[in-house]
């Protein structure tokens, strides 16, 4: 970390004056330097041609550091992944901070380092940004927004209208790790575990899938907030199809299962950051799973179920013992149950 004459970030660092300038020029942001990023311009300019994907997300996770990651890499991977889910190769990201007064510079630095690393890993450039500081008690340490643009891959044909009965539903890896990792350090619920967030960029593997299977991949969706169940319900409703999945095919790591049992949570509703769903032609579903399993981060890929003619707009889960039930959308947040 560069030497600074302040330990915490104060309102002045967001005022647009000397302190803002100092923060920008102190070397703190040098970490992110690249030819396009000029923190003193109003925006970045670059050449872009053809079909372009554009996405944004704000990251408000608390605590900002959690087992397996922090808010910084989450913010990069999240938008990288949303672009990848569009069938695009992410290229340029914007990065905007809302800092609560009093954030320790050491913590901010740690987040920045993760951002840098995540951007490099995903192969994206951060080209424009913004820093705001809000009063103590008017924020939660650090919120991050990223937006990103990417170029659509030529073979990509991701479209809700492509989803049709007979298609298979594939999940890329074991689920619920991120949500449980974060919960494991939440006040009042803490438990000891080696469960880590699964935050990771998915553009690499998605690029390979599209390269290989192109038009036969009908839909991609990362299973973040609300988990697998929410994504499937959205698809069922938006594509006006029925979905059937098998509980016994749901990949859940044993530790995650233990935590879910303890807290009374259903892993299908728990957030992921590095898991995505693929709706693909039945013909290639097994090949997709085979390919996914050759990559780190998708070793537990599996066919979870399929798109069906019946029960339009509904997701039906066949339980491990063979019973069936509707897998509804979650109401509100999933809270730990005791009863």
């Amino acid at each position, binding site marked *: 970390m560069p030497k600074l004459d302040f330990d915490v970030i104060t309102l002045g660092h967001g005022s647009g004056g000397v302190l803002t300038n100092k923060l920008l020029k102190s070397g703190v942001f040098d970490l992110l330097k690249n030819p396009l990023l000029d923190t003193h311009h109003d925006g970045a300019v670059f050449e872009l041609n053809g079909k372009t994907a554009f996405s944004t997300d704000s990251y408000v996770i608390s605590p900002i550091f959690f087992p397996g990651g922090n808010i910084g890499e989450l913010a990069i991977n999240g938008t990288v992944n949303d672009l990848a889910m569009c069938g695009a190769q992410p290229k340029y990201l914007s990065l905007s901070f809302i800092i609560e007064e009093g954030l320790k510079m050491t913590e901010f630095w740690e987040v920045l380092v993760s951002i840098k690393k995540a951007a490099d890993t995903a192969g994206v450039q951060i080209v424009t940004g913004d820093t705001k500081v809000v009063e103590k008690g008017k924020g939660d340490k650090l919120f991050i927004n990223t937006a990103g643009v990417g170029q659509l891959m030529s073979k990509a044909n991701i479209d809700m209208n492509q989803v049709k009965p007979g298609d298979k539903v594939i999940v890329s890896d074991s689920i619920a790790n991120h949500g449980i990792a974060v919960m494991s350090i939440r*006040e*009042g619920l803490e438990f000891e575990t080696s469960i880590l967030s699964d935050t990771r960029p998915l553009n690499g593997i998605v690029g390979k899938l599209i390269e290989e299977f192109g038009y036969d991949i009908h839909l991609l969706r990362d299973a973040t907030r609300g988990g697998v169940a929410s994504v499937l319900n959205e698809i069922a409703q938006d594509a006006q199809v029925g979905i059937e999945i098998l509980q016994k095919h749901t990949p859940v790591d044993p530790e995650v*299962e233990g935590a879910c049992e303890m807290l009374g949570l259903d892993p299908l509703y728990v957030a992921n950051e590095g898991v995505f769903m693929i709706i693909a032609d039945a013909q290639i579903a097994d090949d997709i799973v085979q390919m996914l399993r050759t990559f780190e981060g998708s070793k537990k890929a599996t066919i979870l179920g399929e798109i069906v003619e019946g029960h339009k707009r509904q997701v039906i889960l066949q*339980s491990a013992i063979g019973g069936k*039930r509707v897998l509804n959308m979650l109401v509100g947040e999933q809270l730990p149950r005791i*009863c």
Partner: protein
Amino acid sequence: MKFLSEYRNPEIVHQYIDELHKITTKEWTIMEVCGGQTHSLVKNGILNILPDKINMVHGPGCPVCVTPLNLIDKAVHLAEDKGVILCSYGDMIRVPGSKKSLLEAKATGADIRIMYSPLEAIKIARENPDKEVVFFAVGFETTAPANALSIIHAEREGLTNYSVLASHVLVPPAIEAVMNDSDTQIQGFLAAGHVCTIMGTGEYEPLAQKYNIPIVVTGFEPVDLLQGILMTVRQLENGEARLENQYARVVRPEGNPAAIEMLNRVFQMEDREWRGLGTIPNSGWNIRTELEAYNADIKFNVNILKVPECADCIAGQVLKGIKKPFECSQFGTNCTPEKPLGAPMVSSEGACAAYYHYSNAGDEVNA
């Protein structure tokens, strides 16, 4: 996980199912007393693989569902006091009071913390000496000892800023209330395995005799539930009415003596109002007079007007198993898990919510 996964084994489940189909000759109406059992039945899709002749009815054993409106209003009132941190279990915070739920109070600024254990609330009290920490303690016999333990800890540590708003209800009086209703259809009970873990089975033998009804103390996993149902149906088919214990790996006849001692040390029995059921004599516990310094209700002397429950909600009949949730005029229209009218729609174990969430009943309303 050991002692869990074995009891989810599909092959064993299907042997039980086959056996049930084989022996069931008449229509039987059986109540699973405990909300956790309801949850497991619906979550595992057991209801739609049972013989059609077996009709499972969801009982009143969801502490969240039966907590009276007035007590929730009190919890909201306390939570909205700036000097108070209100701690509660996750399930409780969505339950609607007469004006709002704890969740809504939280949205407008109340300091409400979700806890896994009452011992965590003690930690909060220790770390916030300038605040009053109130634990909103709901629960049947299973949970009451842990809540009692928190008061014992507070006493030992000399914490004067910890108190408990208690809503503890008991299973046997609820079974009596169900059986005393002239409309009751119930022919057998699955008693609540974890309640009996604490209390033992001694209270249930007399009930089986008094009402001439089979009672099987049952666990929560698919194999447990199916074995419990099988044991009940066997009795019914054989014309028996005994107490049996399906869940002997955990439940001893005498219960847990250390827990019972703690209960007696901290709580005294009293008449208690049940949401949807009205007041049942000697049906709950409250903090003993000697320990009233830990009784939030007395400590803060909260006076909140009692508001009548929603007239259209037939929660009482649902909880007694007289009506099914979808027989309620409000089910799925005015009353949904996002906007529940009555408590059984709130907790995911509430009979109405269970139907809404996990059964095809949801289909019609979602469409």
